[in-house]
């Protein structure tokens, strides 16, 4: 068994967690903002490199495993990286690096303190960069862990960092929405830890692969259903699936603009990731539950799209659009369309990130707190931003020739191909919501880019923010062009997910015996 050689090599699996941890800790000790910017960027860059290494290795079809502390699974904690982890790490790495640069650059024109939409110097001084690194750490930890309780811990790291990012600043809307965000997540965490405890009680292990292995002999046990249901509830809440997603649409817009993109693009997708794991590794069966989730996902799309139509402010609209995009993902995973889901996941991270970074810039341009659309006619002054917005808006609505179209098309193709009234209804909603999202997104286009240009004063836009936004838009375009290979990758990863035996045998090769 070449496993020994493997284990040696894959200590790299700890790096996407440890690098942001060290980076964040170091940031707390540095006095000068420029120094913080440099260290933060370096940490994020190194994290991305480590993630790339893991991703490339995992895409070749192997499952990378490291048993922490040398304790064999299931006794210690196992880090596992399969194709799905690779994809997620790559996404968090890229968006993480872009967020760090964006945030650092946004300080360039930030006032000393208070009411700025993007990021104030005071907030930066009091730890926003470090919190961002910790957030990245928690996110990567969630993707890499092969242990149910450790997943809970990862969520805690991620959430606590997000509480900090959400609340620092102490503005009234922040506190009001932040309070709800914290309470909801505490409730979800309480349910999670209870479910993890029950899982240990029932399966006698916390290692996810081991649970999966032990599950193979069990069928039709209501206790399993209960635990899966509780976990699904927790993950659905984190992913903001209707009706458990009420916390998202009003809390994301109050996150400082500099880091809002990361929240929208990646944090909710951690819940989606967890659901994907749950439904592929732990419970390949559970048809009733999946159908229930399918209905909720359909409603999530509808609620998200209608919500986007009901909003006039950029980030509120985007927050709802984000809910809709989660709906598409959950619809995909609950209907077994894994390859379209994975493709759409990549697309969704990029498109939401691009749109939120644009929103940050628009707030600087419009000068208002959220970019209320009272400032119009900016296409002439910012043609490239307009182009990036237009392409991302089409992608959001799922119109060709963007990646959104390809993802949605693939999804609807599978849904209609498998038939059934529920799925047909879901496809109708999925397709029709595209029109709602288009209407909403074009509302912003009309309100901000079109119109009479009567701006007397245009603030200079920080170069870093512009570059990050441009890069994100570029990645989105690249994704559409390179859809062939990316979709092929998604198919490979989907096949791997559909055959959990491989994953299980890599983590617990000899079965249960120590």
């Amino acid at each position: 068994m070449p496993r020994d050689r493997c284990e040696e090599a894959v200590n790299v699996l700890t790096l996407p967690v440890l690098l942001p941890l060290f980076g964040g800790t170091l940031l707390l000790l540095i006095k000068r903002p420029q120094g913080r910017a440099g260290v933060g960027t370096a940490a994020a860059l190194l994290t991305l490199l480590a993630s790339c290494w893991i991703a490339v290795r995992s895409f070749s079809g192997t499952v990378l495993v490291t048993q922490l502390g040398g304790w064999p699974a299931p006794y210690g904690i196992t880090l596992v990286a399969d194709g799905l982890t690779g994809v997620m790490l790559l996404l968090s790495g890229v968006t993480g690096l872009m967020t760090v640069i964006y945030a650092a650059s946004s300080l360039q024109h930030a006032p000393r303190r208070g009411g700025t939409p993007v990021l104030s110097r005071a907030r930066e001084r009091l730890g926003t960069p470090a919190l961002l690194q910790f957030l990245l750490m928690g996110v990567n930890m969630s993707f890499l862990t092969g242990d149910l309780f450790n997943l809970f811990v990862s969520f805690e790291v991620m959430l606590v960092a997000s509480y900090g990012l959400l609340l620092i600043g102490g503005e009234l809307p922040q506190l009001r929405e932040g309070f709800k965000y914290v309470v909801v997540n505490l409730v979800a965490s309480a349910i999670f830890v209870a479910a993890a405890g029950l899982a240990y009680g029932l399966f006698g292990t916390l290692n996810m692969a081991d649970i999966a292995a032990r599950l193979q002999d069990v069928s039709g046990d209501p206790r399993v259903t209960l635990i899966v249901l509780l976990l699904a509830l927790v993950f659905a809440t984190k992913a903001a699936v209707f009706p458990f997603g009420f916390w998202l649409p009003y809390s994301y817009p109050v996150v400082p603009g500099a880091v809002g993109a990361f929240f929208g693009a990646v944090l909710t997708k951690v819940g989606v990731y967890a659901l994907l794991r749950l439904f592929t590794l732990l419970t390949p069966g559970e048809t009733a539950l999946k159908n229930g989730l399918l209905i909720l996902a359909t409603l999530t799309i509808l609620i998200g799209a209608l919500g986007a139509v009901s909003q006039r402010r950029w980030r509120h609209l985007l927050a709802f659009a984000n809910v809709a995009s989660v709906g598409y993902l959950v619809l995909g995973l609950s209907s077994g369309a894994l390859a379209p889901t994975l493709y759409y996941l990549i697309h969704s991270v990029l498109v939401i990130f691009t749109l939120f970074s644009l929103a940050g810039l628009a707030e600087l341009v419009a000068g208002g707190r959220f970019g209320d659309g009272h400032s119009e006619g900016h296409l002439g002054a910012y043609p490239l931003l307009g182009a990036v917005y237009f392409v991302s808006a089409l992608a959001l609505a799922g119109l060709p020739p963007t990646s959104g179209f390809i993802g949605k098309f693939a999804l609807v193709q599978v849904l209609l191909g498998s038939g059934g009234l529920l799925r047909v209804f879901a496809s109708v909603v999925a397709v029709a919501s595209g029109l709602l999202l288009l209407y909403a997104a074009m509302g912003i286009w009309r309100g901000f880019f079109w119109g009479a240009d009567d701006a007397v004063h245009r603030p200079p836009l920080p170069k870093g923010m512009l570059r990050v936004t441009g890069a994100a838009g570029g990645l989105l375009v690249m994704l559409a062009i390179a859809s062939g290979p990316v979709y092929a990758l998604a198919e490979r990863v989907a096949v791997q997910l559909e055959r959990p035996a491989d994953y299980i045998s890599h983590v617990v090769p000899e079965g249960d015996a120590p």
Partner: protein
Amino acid sequence: MLVFTVFTPFVVALFAPLLTRPLGARAGWPLALAFAPSLALVALIPAARSGMPATNSVAWVPGIDLSLAFRADGFSLLFALLVAVIGVLVMIYASAYLGPGERHGRFYSYLLLFGGAMLGFVLSDNLIAMFAFWELTSIASFLLIGFWDERRAAQDGAMKALLITAAGGLALLAAVILLSLAGGSVNLSQLDFAAVREGPLFVPTLALLLLAALTKSAQVPFHLWLPTAMEAPTPISAFLHSATMVKAGIVLLAKFAPLFVLSAWSDGLLYLGLLTMFWGAYSAFKQDDLKALLAYSTVSQLGILTALYGAGYPFAATAHLVNHAAFKAALFLVVGIIDHETGSRSVRELSGLGRKLPLTFAVTVPAALSMAGLPPFGGFISKELFYEAMLRAGTLPIVIAVVGSVMTFAYSLKFLGVFIGPYRCLRPHVHEAPVWMLLPPALLTVLVTLFGTVPWDATLATPMVALAAPALGFDAEALYLWHGLTPALMWSFVTWGVGVLLYAMREPFVNMQRALTPVWNANSLYYAAVAGMERLARLVTLNTQNAPFAAQLRILWGPVALAGIVFGFQALGAYLPTGLTPPPLEFLAAALLVLAGCYGVLVAKTRLSALIFTGLAGLSLVALFVMLRAPDLALTQLLIETVTVILFLSVFRYLPPLTRYRREARTVLLDALLAGSVGLAVFSALLAVQTPVAARIQDFFLERSKTEGGGYNVVNVILVDFRGYDTLGEITVLAIVGMSVYALLKIKTTPVKGEEHGDG
């Protein structure tokens, strides 16, 4: 070759702004070269005619069968050439039409984007790619209609066109998937039409396909977007909204004609087309704005095409398609000239322009008479074919066709009316347009004239229409100007006679039309629908997102309670651990105290008493831990309870009194029930998992703690060694909380004005 043809305009579009910066509007000349490869498609005609069309394909996303597969059959080729020719003419025209202050880069980029999309659409064999290009034409059209975006009307027209055509596009998306599932292929040329017709989903498939075609081609009642699309610059209207894009739906009908063989469908299309033809012509006659007149006229002519293709007369339809594209584009360009030179497009403000603009007049006459259906112009030929087809279709069709054509004849005269009669114009100095604005419509007019005068010519009309024959499956006939005294010609005489009469009586007739205008129409329906959608969106959002926070939390706990009760008890029945003994009495006492504390919190009137009851529950829990001989847990819990009370007391005075949040007895009961159910759920689940499915791994820890972990306290060894990674995470959590709290206390908040107080 085909891929190159389609993608050249896209690529050039990206670089158009680089050329317009130094060249201004004149950049239209070099940029028109983007259509050179599509003009070169002429070389593929022999292959298409022989029935072996050229194909070319590039894989894009093999996973979903999406490839950019192009196939130049005769019909596609004919339409692609039409796009290319008019595209080039419009670019040349625009180079003179656009003023120096316009945004040339944007204009040409959008225009080329459209050109590429349109070429892609007609040449696509892969249905998914065809859909993609179809939507892309809608998107380009949106940008072009909104070109003068500082005008609200332009924005609105763009949005309307986009919403309606994109909605149709989504129907096409669904139709494409259903077609490929039933027809066994995503390539049009390999699609098994018979299988689709016999498939179980044939009716929805066809309905979706028709919805797409009818919205795009502006058939009643979806025609409403076309007149408002006239906010676009006139060359755009000529190119997109008369000659090419609006015919995309017609092209779809033509290509999928084998699906409509059932008489119900073809009859439906026939009458819908005729209705559109009538309504368009009727509305066109009413207009004073020349451009609006042409817009409604386009609606009307698209009706003719729908009726002809739908009812199975592809030969007549194709002849008319070519004719209409030529004369309508020419007329639009003429309107552009009139607007450009006189500053007005209104019939009321203009008259006798022929004297000042003789060349324009000369260009207009053949085109307008062709629209009217007079010999010897192309329009006459195709209108005769139309009449013949309608005569075969029945009495009602021919009657509607003639009534519609009478109006068509009359509004064509109305259009010509601005050139004749006494000279009237608001602008003092009116002179001919630059030559590059005159030449494009002139060329189209020549085409229309040749089409009518020498239709049998072996190089022009007959072979042009015949090119589409193999693809659409009709037998090409030779076209002739003189058919003999056929019934169709008789009807033509009637048309002209009544048409002249109608034109003479235009004042009273238009007044009658105005008087009859209904208070609602498709437009008001559209605005009502959009407003309704917005209202619905607000309503749904308010009702799903803005519930009080407590109610939202109940949604979260509800499933836990429900799941626990349903599955927990079910599991308890089957997996109740054996050997359960009743708990000792002191346990019960402590448990009762916990319950009492919980109940107290629920009914507490003041915050202080609630706090005390929380403490009671917590400390009773500590007692339970002690009884269970878990001193470390007891200590931890005690610490937490103490710290919580201290923290709470320190912020106590800042909190509003509890009486502000009065709760009804019903809510209290609901909450108690919910909390109790969750408790019961967890309890039953805990009991149920006491019989694990496999041995728990705890023995390993007990065995190795001392020997390998080096500690007697197994819990400690688990925390720092076996699962040290968890602890690393938890320490990080603590550190983050610490720094966040520090930051929160340290930062100076600025009060935000206008923000309402929290809803607690």
